[in-house]
């Protein structure tokens, strides 16, 4: 298991947002985490990334404990988190955003080559290269943050609601990109989504989180009666 979270508890003040959550991600997998609004999905990702403190439990990455390490150090070990809601640096240009994607790397030539690859993959970003990221559309910004995360060459990519607030066509694009990253480049992905239908179709395995607890898990949740009723509306 590249990521192993055991009995994790995370809270804000006296409120417990995640209680006793255990999840695992193996190398090369797409794992989806679905659940209603406020169930603790984002909180769980942020705790893994080191942005929120773990009150109990353990998080290990590649066999090494990473809980309660500073976020910048967790990231340097190879976990890239794409925050929810177009987390571009809006005052900075598209190019500067991409350059900062490689901030922790020192192989300057290879970074330039990776930026070039991203521009080939997302041609719209090439047209916008000198523009401030804040002037891009929502879908373009989402592509920019995914490209930026990939330039760090992560071993685990965590995406927090990448489809949130985007038009259906763009959402389809984003999910296609996620699928290709995994199938063509063997990227390991932990995906948090409210769009359960797409998230389950894409994933090798999935977890359902409700009120901060993992209530269901498995490779074929799309055919689970409870999931179909509560999340897929079938």
């Amino acid at each position, binding site marked *: 298991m590249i990521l192993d979270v055991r009995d994790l508890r995370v809270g804000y003040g006296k409120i417990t947002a995640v209680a006793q959550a255990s999840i695992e991600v193996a190398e090369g997998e797409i794992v989806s985490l679905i659940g209603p609004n406020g169930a603790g999905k984002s909180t769980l990702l942020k705790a893994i*990334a*080191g*942005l929120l403190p773990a009150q109990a439990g353990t998080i290990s990455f590649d066999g090494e404990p990473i809980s309660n390490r*500073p*976020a*910048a150090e967790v*990231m*340097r070990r190879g976990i*890239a*988190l*794409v*925050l929810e809601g177009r*987390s571009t*640096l*809006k*005052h*900075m240009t598209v190019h*500067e955003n991409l*350059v*900062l*994607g490689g*901030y*922790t790397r020192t192989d300057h030539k290879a970074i330039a080559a990776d930026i070039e690859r991203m521009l080939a993959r997302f041609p719209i970003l090439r047209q916008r290269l000198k523009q401030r990221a*804040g002037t891009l559309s929502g879908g373009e910004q989402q592509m920019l943050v995914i490209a*930026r*995360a990939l330039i*760090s060459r992560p071993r685990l990519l965590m995406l927090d609601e990448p489809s949130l607030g985007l038009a259906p066509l763009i959402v389809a694009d984003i999910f296609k990109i996620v699928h290709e990253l995994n199938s063509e480049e063997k990227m390991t992905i932990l995906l948090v989504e409210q769009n359960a239908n797409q998230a389950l179709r894409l994933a090798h395995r999935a977890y359902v989180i409700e009120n901060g607890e993992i209530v269901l898990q498995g490779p074929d949740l799309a055919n689970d009666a409870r999931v179909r009723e509560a999340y897929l509306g079938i």
Partner: protein
Amino acid sequence: MLLLQQIINGVMLGSSYSLIAIGYTLVFGVLHLIHLAHGEVFMVGAFVALQVVLLMGGGVGVAIPAAAVASAVLGVLIYLAAVKPIMARKGHFLAPMISTIGVGLVLQELATRMFGGEQVGFPVQMESHVWHLGGLTITSVQVVILAVSLGLMLALHLFVTLTRVGMAMRATAESMVISHTLGIRSDRIIILTFAIASALAGVAGVLVGMSFNSISPYMGVDMGIKGLAAMLLGGLGNVYGAMIGGLVIGIVEVISVGYLSSSYRDAFAFFVIIAVLLFRPRGIFGSTAHVEG
């Protein structure tokens, strides 16, 4: 011609305000803190430069690096001793600012103890040339002041736009959370920011000492307020705004001395600031986007 001369003189004066204002704005950018001991960092820079020149001799070429290094070290120490521990306790958001007021007073008292409360001369040896161009008079001291301050502003601009560390500094100012997800160690960036901001203030201390030919332990109070006003005028957290804001205040001040009376110079400068802020509450370059951290 008189007006043009005054604009030139105003730019000379204002460029020092700009250097101080840039420091305030850099620190505000990364920490959302108004660093109220920044004027005293400026003052200490001037005194250290004076002592170094008295001890070792040398001119501007010695005074400026000495002031820059001493102020940078002082600025970082202020952050580590009086800002960081208080921010870490997550108390009231004003607490770190109050702490910097305390640091400023301590530095004033220490400087008074060591150097006396009187104004002292600032004998940075420099051959003084005076050039007459038409009706304009320009001195070599003015040229040095302008070249140093504009040179530093250009260097800062290149640093924050062309280097990865400079970009990381802007990223930290825009969003610490996003910066962390990019692997940027914000604690180091904050220390670097204090060092750069304080070094600029120290250099401004030398430039102001040269142009007025005297320094005092209380010089940081006035200059601190002017620098703060220049930052507000330009727009909180905006480096280019701070540059322009400082120049505007310098020019307004000199012109008001020329056409009104020297006793109103500060009042008139602030009158203009209030007028600008009434029309553009976020300052000349201010944006609403900077409210959220």
